[in-house]
């Protein structure tokens, strides 16, 4: 039985029915991780964190098999899941891709991990990421770049590039990522998988290593929307451990996905299809829109007049929050210290040597924008623009149920191609950052390939707490197309079913 081809839902069904043991399933995926080390999708450090976590996963699987009768009906029984390394897992290493946290062992599981374990899912590895989630290519990791499974000379996107590559290469049936400006959706698009950034507050951030606290969200990454819904049913919901966690009641996401999208009003923002968009990406997204229309949706033109300012706004707001959040890394409390000469030089040298170039750059940007004399001109102005961007969405959602467009302006770029020019890297997030600024949910799903057989992503954005609608539209699209089923080694079949 080739377990790699099964969806997360199918694997849970097989294990719940006792047709395969959880131990065999875990061993299968651990072996695939080991065989595909060259992708560098998982953090596997001299401290042997992967071996340690693998041992824990095997133990958890044996325990589940031993308590089969009691646990078989738990929603994720035995499901192996890859975890972005910025999400705390108890006792094993959590490094967030940083030298600063190279030997950090979290005293707790993040709330989302706790919920996964309660549902009998098994974390099988920590995935590589841009340091502290700052990047769009997974090149900014202390542990080296991750490769795109579709073309090893290209980036998987970022910052959740390890999670995206792991799912695309079938090293795990599903994964958790986090999304601050597109870090779930952009790598999902580059690696041909499905990734959901939930509404701000929908999934607890307790135990997610903070980058920009008003933007960060944990979300599911899998090959299909159906599997993302399966994970959302477990990880979403109020958590007293996160004061920004929402008390709005959760829907049962897996229940809603089977309804038709007949009559769904889908907004199309024509300015997203203009300058800067790769022609092949534009064509694939146009085809996807026609597909949705043929399934009963209505396409309606909408305007988001301030979205052109989203990247500029984001690159003030996110670095400001990062400069504040990362002040906790002082060489005292978290694992890395550079020098013991004097207190001041210990702080500065530990931070200077413990953080990579992009993290230092963003701390500098944020510290500058928050400093006396510049706060009003940068942070306050950007925060007022943030309100305008949010209002644009509120206006648009008066006439449509969701908004469709490209996830990224291009397909995956070459490793090293943009690392010398931070600004060109930032523009990879041009279509994704607005949802974070406005706190809205958005999903990326595969909708085609370019001439190099690199995946193309379709993004759907919705009003706050409309995850059910997004997952339903994505699932219905996937019932009628086969893009999401294409792996890195499959031949493209290309057409809608």
């Amino acid at each position, binding site marked *: 039985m080739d377990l790699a081809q099964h969806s997360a839902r199918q694997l849970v069904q097989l294990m719940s029915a006792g047709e395969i043991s959880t131990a065999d399933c875990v061993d299968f995926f651990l072996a695939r991780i080991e065989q595909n080390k060259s992708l560098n999708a998982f953090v596997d450090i001299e401290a042997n964190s992967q071996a340690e976590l693998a041992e824990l996963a095997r133990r958890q699987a044996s325990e589940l098999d031993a308590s089969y009768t009691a646990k078989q009906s738990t929603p994720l029984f035995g499901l192996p899941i890859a975890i972005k390394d910025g999400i705390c897992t108890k006792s094993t290493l959590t490094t967030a891709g940083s030298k600063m946290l190279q030997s950090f062992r979290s005293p707790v599981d993040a709330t989302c991990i706790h919920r996964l374990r309660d549902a009998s899912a098994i974390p099988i590895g920590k995935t590589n990421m841009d340091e502290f989630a700052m990047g769009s290519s997974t090149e900014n990791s202390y542990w080296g770049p991750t490769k795109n499974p579709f073309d090893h000379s290209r980036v998987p996107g970022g910052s959740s590039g390890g999670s995206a590559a792991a799912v695309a290469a079938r090293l795990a049936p599903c994964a958790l990522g986090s999304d601050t400006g597109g870090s779930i959706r952009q790598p999902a698009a580059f690696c041909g998988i499905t990734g959901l950034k939930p509404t701000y507050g929908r999934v607890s951030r307790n135990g997610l290593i903070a980058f920009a*606290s008003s933007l960060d969200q944990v979300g599911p990454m899998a090959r299909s929307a159906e599997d993302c819904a399966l994970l959302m049913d477990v990880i979403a919901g109020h958590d007293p451990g996160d004061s920004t966690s929402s008390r709005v009641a959760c829907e049962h996401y897996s229940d809603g996905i089977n309804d038709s999208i007949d009559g769904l009003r889908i907004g199309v923002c024509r300015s997203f299809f203009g300058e800067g968009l790769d022609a092949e990406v534009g064509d694939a997204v146009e085809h996807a829109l026609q597909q949705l229309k043929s399934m009963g949706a209505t396409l309606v033109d909408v305007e988001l007049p301030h979205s052109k300012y989203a990247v500029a706004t984001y690159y003030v707001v996110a670095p400001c929050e990062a400069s504040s959040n990362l002040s906790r890394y002082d060489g*005292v409390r978290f694992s890395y210290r550079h020098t013991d000469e004097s*207190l001041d030089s210990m702080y*500065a040298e530990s931070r200077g040597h413990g953080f990579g170039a992009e993290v230092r750059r963003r701390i500098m940007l944020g510290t*500058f924008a928050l400093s006396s004399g510049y706060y009003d001109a*940068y942070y306050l102005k950007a925060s*007022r623009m943030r309100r305008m961007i949010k209002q644009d969405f509120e206006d648009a959602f008066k006439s449509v149920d969701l908004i469709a467009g490209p996830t990224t302006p291009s397909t995956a770029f070459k490793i090293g191609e943009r690392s010398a020019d931070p600004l060109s890297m930032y523009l990879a997030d041009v279509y994704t950052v607005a949802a974070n600024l406005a706190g809205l949910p958005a999903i990326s799903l595969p909708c085609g390939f370019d001439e190099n057989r690199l995946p193309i992503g379709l993004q759907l954005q919705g009003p706050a707490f409309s995850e059910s609608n997004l997952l339903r539209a994505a699932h219905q699209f996937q019932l009628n197309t086969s893009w999401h089923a294409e792996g890195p080694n499959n031949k493209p079949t290309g057409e809608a079913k």
Partner: protein
Amino acid sequence: MADEASIDPDLVKRVAKLAKLADSQSLEQTAAELTKILGYVDQLNSAEIPDSIEPFFGAVEPESEDENAVRSDVVQPSFDRETMLGNTTDNDGEHFLVPPVF
């Protein structure tokens, strides 16, 4: 918004001091990178934002369902000292140790 030319090496040095960040990269190179990024950000200057627009700082909006999300004042278990000292670079079993201040 501030003149982008104002990102000079002296300003970089001042900001680095505020951020407590030593950087092996030259001040000139950092100044050039920040100037380029802020040059892009400066397009916010060309946007018209009505005076009535209040900033949106994110998280929870006033008067929303999630406003004043406070939990019950109940004592919860917290970490023991050994756990919290477990990730430090230097400790004496009771305290974080740092270089002498005086």
